[in-house]
């Protein structure tokens, strides 16, 4: 019944890259692994694994501290990674690149260090209904502590930001706009340029949660003109436990440190402490050096393929998956914005997403099921959970065929044939 996958040139080209990912060459429950949970965490190519291992085997020591050779190598590797990230984002300076544990920590840093000291009762932080919990809870924490208000911009039935609604909520009380660049639950790409322009026109700085965007688009924070940009290594084919906060230097400079410890100071006495300069002011304690090295290798890897090529191929996969899944009776795609990253969130009549997740796993297909840490989005669409298939450039049309066939079989099983 299923339309056979029609490999074209792009498919064949991208099939080559798949071999770079050792983890993909395995069977799950006797079937070849179809890893379609890339929005939760992507897999690492051998180039990243090798870079992490080479760092551990040949360079590891603490950074910014020792005069011995290994400490210098580790510092060079770590600061080299920072420069690699700067280039990737097209930031002006490495002083604007803060290494964090991930997107979540980056947003919390801005919430605690930028927002909290500034917020007065009646001030507002403007987010949207599309946000991941990591871009909701840190703002709830600081607004609760300061008497400020969290204001939520509406979304449309297709899962887009309601730009008029957003504009109406921007006010002279708004102190910060914090929005996803790409929705993790639905895949919607937000019109970030317009958002930044609207906010800046009122003098409001903008933080973008780029966790779901960096794996899919070439990024230029200077062109985008955002004030803060956060992303994670592990969604960009890099390691877990490493992420980045880009911040406009003038803003970072004026912010107090948020964690105290080693490396973030210049001098300490019990009377007073002089804080280190950017970016070290925000990096207390020994960082995840090997993670930063791995992230830099991941950036090298995706840029060698080309993010524009990746985006174009993933767009084809998204179109194919949408078409295949849409044909299944009782299947409802949640999130139908015209501009989407390569993921499909859906429900299947009569089959709870968790049952679907178990059934697909038995067929070797890994998808995410649940609320995707975006419970307000689920509430908006009136569903407790969805199934989400998210695609990377190493996925194939044949895997999407298997996904669609397996979803169809699950429906048949639950209907009693």
């Amino acid at each position, binding site marked *: 019944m299923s339309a056979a996958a029609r490999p074209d040139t792009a498919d064949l080209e991208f099939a080559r890259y798949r071999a770079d990912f050792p983890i993909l060459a395995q069977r799950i429950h006797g079937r070849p692994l179809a890893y379609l949970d890339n929005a939760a965490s992507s897999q690492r190519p051998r180039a990243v694994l090798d870079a992490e291992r080479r760092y551990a085997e040949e360079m590891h020591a603490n950074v910014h501290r020792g005069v011995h050779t290994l400490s210098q190598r580790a510092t060079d590797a770590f600061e080299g990674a920072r420069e690699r990230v700067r280039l990737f984002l097209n930031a002006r300076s490495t002083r604007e690149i803060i290494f964090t544990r991930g997107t979540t920590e980056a947003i919390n840093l801005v919430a605690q260090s930028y927002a909290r000291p500034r917020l007065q009762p009646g001030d507002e932080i403007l987010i949207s209904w599309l946000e991941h919990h990591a871009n909701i809870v840190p703002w709830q924490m600081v607004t609760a502590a300061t008497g400020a208000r969290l204001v939520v911009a509406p979304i449309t039935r297709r899962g887009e930001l309601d730009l008029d609604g957003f504009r109406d909520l921007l006010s002279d009380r708004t102190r910060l706009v914090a929005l996803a660049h790409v929705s993790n639950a639905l895949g919607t790409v937000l019109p970030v340029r317009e958002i930044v322009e609207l906010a800046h026109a009122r003098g409001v700085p903008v933080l973008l949660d780029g966790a779901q965007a960096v794996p899919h688009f070439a990024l230029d924070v200077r062109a985008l003109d955002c004030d803060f940009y956060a992303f994670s290594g592990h969604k960009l084919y890099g390691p877990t436990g490493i992420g980045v906060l880009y911040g406009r230097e003038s803003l970072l400079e004026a912010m107090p440190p948020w964690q105290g410890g080693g490396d973030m100071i210049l001098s300490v006495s019990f009377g007073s402490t002089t804080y280190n300069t950017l970016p070290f002011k925000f990096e207390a304690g020994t960082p995840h050096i090997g993670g930063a090295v791995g992230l830099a290798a991941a950036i090298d890897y995706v840029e060698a393929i080309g993010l524009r090529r990746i985006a174009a191929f993933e767009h084809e996969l998204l179109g194919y998956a949408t078409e295949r899944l849409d044909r299944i009776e009782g299947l409802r795609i949640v999130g139908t914005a015209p501009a989407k990253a390569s993921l499909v969130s859906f429900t299947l009549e009569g089959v*709870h997403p*968790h*049952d679907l997740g178990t059934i697909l796993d038995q067929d070797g297909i890994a998808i995410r099921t649940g609320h995707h840490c975006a419970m307000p989005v689920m509430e908006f669409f009136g569903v*407790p959970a969805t199934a989400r298939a998210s695609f990377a450039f190493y996925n194939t049309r044949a895997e999407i065929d298997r996904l669609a066939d397996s979803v169809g079989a699950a429906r048949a*099983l639950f209907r*009693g044939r």
Partner: protein
Amino acid sequence: MDLKDLYRDVILDHNRHPRNFGPPARPARSARGHNPLCGDQLTVYAVIDGDIVRELRFDGTGCAISVASASLMTEALTGKTVAEANRLFGLVHDLLTRADAPAPPELGKLAALSGVRGFPSRVKCASLCWHTLQAALAQSAEPVSTE
């Protein structure tokens, strides 16, 4: 693991047509169970007369395993004493978590849940209603609602 072992006909049937679904007409002890990981939400209502479970009902949303487990539980425990209900809870708990646990005849249709133990990530789905029932039974005052 075989999927047919997890999704046995009894499970699929109770998922499609849950028994004792919806709150009872008379006052009942109730408790809400929530699995934050997957968003499953169940409310279990127990009408207790002396030490007899006169009526046991539930409602809420969840996957097939959690709905079928709740439906089977309400069927199995209605008319039982609280002590018998607790004993069955122990047997089901063993059935779900111990690879070598036998399915004694007194489990009846509840034995259909034995396939769940092959799927460790789903054990919580099957046990949610049972823990919720324990919470409902632990309430001393009647009627009590957590709403």
